[in-house]
């Protein structure tokens, strides 16, 4: 007994910081996801010339909390013929995989749970791929045709697009030369150029594949409302349904973070090595101050006293965040002796800001696509994956490797590496066009054959 207690104490002594970070993530993530949903609804409303949620709180700012309360107190229905155990297990599996994948990520140089994980990126990608079991098992356990169809579609889609995404990641990793997330970002810092510019074809492939992997429109076939009710989630209600929802949006954050880390420079500021652009450091606090100022400006226009108060509180929060962001910049100016002590805080806070900024931009792009492009048909989706993205990504791995060898031969580094990788990217583009041409010809032939068969029969 003594030994067990001693072991527990040793364990806590070693791992208290990651454990604390994990608890913070599990506690805060649902809130973040709720607000991502609110942003999505607001954006959708804006693009469709509506107002969106406006009732709960000023401009609907408290809507996520109302939604969460509604979901929590809803009746939890389990269909009579459902496989109870699997029905219970499936959403938990989905959420567990998504949350575990977050553990491998680094939100800035200071905030990382699995510190210096040697297999970093592989861990994130591999664990987040497990979420598919939640979808498939949930669809099977509900014992309903819509659910099963949704689950099967989802399994096929994820398995097909994982290959393309993996190959795109391999092209990026060739440039980084390591799997460790911190080292990947540091490699981009020392190269002075983000890998998204060195491997644009890989970035594009990953972008498309990541949309398909998170089941977002235009590839949201597993839950196509017009065909399958809600796909694998049809029979789920209340809290279980919200777990699926949480897993879906967490996965979005995970793929956005992976893309940011590997292709968009992680937590590095744009032009991190260019000294005359150092004034960009003042951008984050100014941005947050501007948001707070706008909130104050809108306060008198709110209809009720509570809403006015809420607006002032939001503005105050913005100013506090701005103070935190500006602190490490202004302290050395006031007290030059503090310059060294403040440096790690500066790296942590501003790194975190830029990382979250880039992840938000990536997610914004996802939403933008969702409201712009109509849904694909299932055979079109499969054809895009197998006939276009996978060949393109394999060709691209070869081209990036070749350009790296050429760059090594001529001792190219940093921006100069673009001299080698740009021709490779152009070759990749040509390959893409050739693949598309072959594909078009094949489809024309198939359609002609089908037409002949139709008229003959």
């Amino acid at each position: 007994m003594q030994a067990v207690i001693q072991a527990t104490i040793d364990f806590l002594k070693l791992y208290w910081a990651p454990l604390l970070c994990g608890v913070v993530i599990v506690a805060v993530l649902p809130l973040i996801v709720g607000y991502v949903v609110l942003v999505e609804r607001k954006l959708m409303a804006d693009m469709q010339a509506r107002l969106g949620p406006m009732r709960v709180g000023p401009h609907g700012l408290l809507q996520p909390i109302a939604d969460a309360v509604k979901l929590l107190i809803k009746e939890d229905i389990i269909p009579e013929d459902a496989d109870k155990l699997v029905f219970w297990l499936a959403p938990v599996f989905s959420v567990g995989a998504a949350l575990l994948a977050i553990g491998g990520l680094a939100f800035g140089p200071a905030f990382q749970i699995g510190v210096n994980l040697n297999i970093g990126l592989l861990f994130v990608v591999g664990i987040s791929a497990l979420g598919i079991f939640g979808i498939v098992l949930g669809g099977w356990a509900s014992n309903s045709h819509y659910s099963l169809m949704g689950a099967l579609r989802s399994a096929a889609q994820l398995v097909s697009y994982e290959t393309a995404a993996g190959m795109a990641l391999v092209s990026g990793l060739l440039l980084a030369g390591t799997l460790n997330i911190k080292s990947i970002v540091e490699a981009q810092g020392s190269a002075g150029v983000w890998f998204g510019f060195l491997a644009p074809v890989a970035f594009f492939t990953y972008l498309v594949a990541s949309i398909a992997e998170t089941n977002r429109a235009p590839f949201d076939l597993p839950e196509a409302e017009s065909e399958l009710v809600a796909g694998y989630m049809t029979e789920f209600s209340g809290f279980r349904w919200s777990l699926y929802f949480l897993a879906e949006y967490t996965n979005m954050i995970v793929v956005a973070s992976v893309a940011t880390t590997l292709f968009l420079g992680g937590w590095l500021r744009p032009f991190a090595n260019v000294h005359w652009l150092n004034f960009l450091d003042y951008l984050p606090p100014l941005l947050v101050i501007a948001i707070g100022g706008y909130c104050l400006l809108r306060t008198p226009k709110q209809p009720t006293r509570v809403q006015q108060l809420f607006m002032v509180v939001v503005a105050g929060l913005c100013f506090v965040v701005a103070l935190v962001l500006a602190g490490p910049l202004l302290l050395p100016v006031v007290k030059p002796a503090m310059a060294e002590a403040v440096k790690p805080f500066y790296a942590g806070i501003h790194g975190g800001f830029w990382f979250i900024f880039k992840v938000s931009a990536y997610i914004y792009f996802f939403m933008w696509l969702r409201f712009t492009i109509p849904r694909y048909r299932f055979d079109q989706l499969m054809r895009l994956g197998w006939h276009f993205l996978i060949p393109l990504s394999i060709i691209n791995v070869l081209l990036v490797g070749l350009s790296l060898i050429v760059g090594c031969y001529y001792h190219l580094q940093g921006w100069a590496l673009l001299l080698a990788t740009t021709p490779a990217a152009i070759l990749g583009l040509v390959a893409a066009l050739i693949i598309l041409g072959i594909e078009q010809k094949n489809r024309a032939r198939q359609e002609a054959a089908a037409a002949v068969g139709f008229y003959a029969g």
Partner: protein
Amino acid sequence: MLDSVIFYFFATIAVGSAALMVTRRNAVHSAIFLIATLLATAGIFLQLRAEFLFIVQIILYVGGIMVLFIFVIMLVNLDVALHQIKFARQKWVALIVALALSAQVGLLFWTTSKGAGQIWPGLNAAPANRLPPNAETVAKSLFNEYLLPFEIASVLLLVAMIGAVVMAKKRA
């Protein structure tokens, strides 16, 4: 102490769910317990500080093969009565294989315990900080020392893949 606690935790899960996998009637339940077994084995790899093996186990076996297993189980929709008859026939073969395997393991225990002068063969996890980075070490030995076997294995896989495509095309 901590190491052995973690080991017995994962080992219990692995053995328990392996037993459950064999005894379940429902094919999907068996698949779920097989997933649990594979994940627990991955946990043991991690406890031995072989993090690359851990993630490869998860990506290949759990994320790849098991997804296809479940996919096939759902597509085929096994008839319960039919597959019971079919599987019952393998009882004696399974028994012989299991006996042979346990004899081998017993022999291993017997020989190692004799050599080291102890009852059970001791397996000690390497200290975390002294182990070289896993992924790099595996890659180096794979591409330096074992390049030819590696290439032969990949050609074999390619042949299998092309064969599968050809067979699928013929059916259509």
